[in-house]
């Protein structure tokens, strides 16, 4: 059934989609080309920005150095005119941070788009089943118990998964419309864990733990390290890869459960796969970047406006747009003030008016 060639083609989701799309003329084709060129551009540009001034020339040289070093013989040689501090800033601070922004933005957007299809509801965001509140509580608890950084992340991740598991099991108790009841269970579980977060804050030491919990929850990429990235990258890649692979079939879910089953889709199994993947992505995102809202809600709409509702094009578009959006927001977070503005605040303050603007355009389609 599943040709290996096909898998490997699709695995590199982006490339595959580019190939498919540029080869046929469609309504969204120009939109896609636009999006594809955007990400590398913004990524490179973002490397030049930061409070620590590194001249553009140095940035390029620093980036090129490891490559040219590989070239055998001293054919190409870049003179090391930059300082160790500059190299440190580029490789240890900017690069991991930008990679994290790409992962988080792309992951949350894809998870959001997949959920909107699964729940047939364009107002759903990836934390609808309680993963963010769960992860938030996990982190808060870990901070309260003075666990170390790695443990905080692990705890956030695990509680995120736990919350979604509870939601899912809770929804199994009822025999009615599965998606509605799933959303309802999500609301309940999220509220419960949010209350637990409040409880943690309440019992937390206001000098020591409370600010830590509060700021952790606000979200930031300021102190992302390679080790953090390594921890979550496997989850991101696998979950995003699976969602990209089954993306055409999400279309069928979005049309309706019964119809999808009549078209040969095992909707229950597929729902589980989507929930699992989205949860892994969101939990990973929360655990390296804190609670970041709006991306998973706004970006899929933006994507739909550019390339239409077909998930074959929508998911790659969301991946790219989400990454770009997050890079820009993070650039803002770094550049606006000497200090850092928490990402969770910026995404909402930028995202909410942006969403309002999107809605005012007729092209949203579903409204």
């Amino acid at each position, binding site marked *: *059934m*599943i*040709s290996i060639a*096909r*898998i490997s083609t*699709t695995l590199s989701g982006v490339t595959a989609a580019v190939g*498919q799309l540029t080869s046929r003329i469609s*309504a969204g084709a120009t939109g896609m080309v636009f999006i594809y060129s955007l990400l590398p551009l913004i990524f490179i540009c973002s490397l030049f920005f930061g409070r620590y001034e590194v001249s553009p020339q140095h940035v390029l040289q620093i980036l090129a150095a490891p490559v040219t070093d590989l070239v055998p013989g001293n054919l190409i040689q870049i003179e090391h005119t930059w300082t160790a501090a500059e190299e440190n800033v580029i490789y240890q601070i900017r690069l991991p941070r930008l990679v994290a922004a790409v992962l988080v933005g792309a992951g949350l957007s894809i998870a959001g788009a997949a959920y909107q*299809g699964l729940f*047939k*509801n*364009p107002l759903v965001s990836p934390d609808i089943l309680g993963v963010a509140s769960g992860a938030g509580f996990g982190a808060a608890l870990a901070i309260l118990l003075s666990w170390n950084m790695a443990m905080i992340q692990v705890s956030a991740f695990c509680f995120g998964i736990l919350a979604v598991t509870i939601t899912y099991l809770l929804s199994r108790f009822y025999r009615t419309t599965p998606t509605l009841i799933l959303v309802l269970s999500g609301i309940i579980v999220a509220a419960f864990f949010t209350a637990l977060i409040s409880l943690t804050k309440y019992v937390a030491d206001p000098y020591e733990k409370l600010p830590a919990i509060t700021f952790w929850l606000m979200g930031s990429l300021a102190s992302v390290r390679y080790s953090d990235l390594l921890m979550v990258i496997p989850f991101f890649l696998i979950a995003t890869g699976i969602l990209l*692979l*089954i*993306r*055409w*079939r999400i*279309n*069928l879910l*979005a*049309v*309706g459960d*019964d*119809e999808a*089953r*009549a*078209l*040969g*889709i*095992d909707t229950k199994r597929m729902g589980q796969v989507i929930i699992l993947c989205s949860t892994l992505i969101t939990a990973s995102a929360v655990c390296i970047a804190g609670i970041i809202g709006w991306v998973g809600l706004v970006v899929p709409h933006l994507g*739909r406006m550019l390339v*239409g*509702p*077909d998930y*074959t094009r929508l998911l790659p578009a969301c991946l790219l747009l989400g990454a770009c959006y997050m890079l820009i927001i993070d650039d803002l977070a770094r550049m606006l003030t000497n200090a850092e503005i928490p990402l969770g605040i910026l995404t909402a303050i930028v995202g909410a008016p942006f969403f309002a603007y999107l809605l005012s355009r007729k092209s949203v*389609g*579903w409204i």
Partner: protein
Amino acid sequence: MILDVNQAGFRYDSVRMIFSGISFSLGEQEVLCILGPNGIGKSTLIRCLANLYPLCAGSIRLHDRDIRSLNYRDVARVIGYVPQAHEITFPFSVREFVLMGRAPHLGLFASPGKEDRTKADEAIGLVGIQKITDKPVNEISGGEYQLAMIARALAQEPEVLLLDEPTSHLDFGNQIRVLEIIDRLARDGLSVIMSSHFPDHAFLTSNNVAIMQHGSFMAYGLAEEVVTETNLKATYGVDVSITYSHDVERHVCVPHRSGQCRCRDPKQPEYSPKMAAMVPAMR
């Protein structure tokens, strides 16, 4: 026989059996029309046949294999299901929508290819909605949506088509058009099961008619034999005339006018000149 139903029974809850003891077989090119009062279980039966609900009693055999032993995909390759029209959230284009019918023929990780696209376009051509292929499905009329759903089911290349009230909400012309498409499809080799509220439709397309009443088939057989004045009176509680019309060369089924239909009352004004003045010239 493609589909064999044997003593089928179903319940939603433990309280009440919706239907039980239903048996019939569906042959190639056969069109079976299911009639019956509101809420008797026509839609439920069709959903059971589409493998959406599992039976509580009896069995459905598809090509001599129990439907319960097949997965969704296997069933979807043989049976196409067209539910009653409903609202759709995302504005897929009609082409994307019809293309979804290719799902049972594609691998888990595959997207539809060129061949699938051709087949979808053929299905669109068959039902005659080429003009709206690029329109979003939530901006087309109810009739067009019904046709798009039929096209999707055809893209599925099934052997059996299940249609739930395919003519409801359609205007008179679209009703006839859908029935004609069903007729043509059956002639081309498809078997069809459809539910309807119009006994007259049975005469238009079907070879066999089943009347559902009290949780099972009250009558089952050839249209002319089953759609009788007695049976309809028993099913719907109203008086109906079944006569052979030479104009249309078939039996027709017309309800009796109620006792003293006021509209033909001679006391009523017949056609006031004032009204006539407002009406455009009759064509």
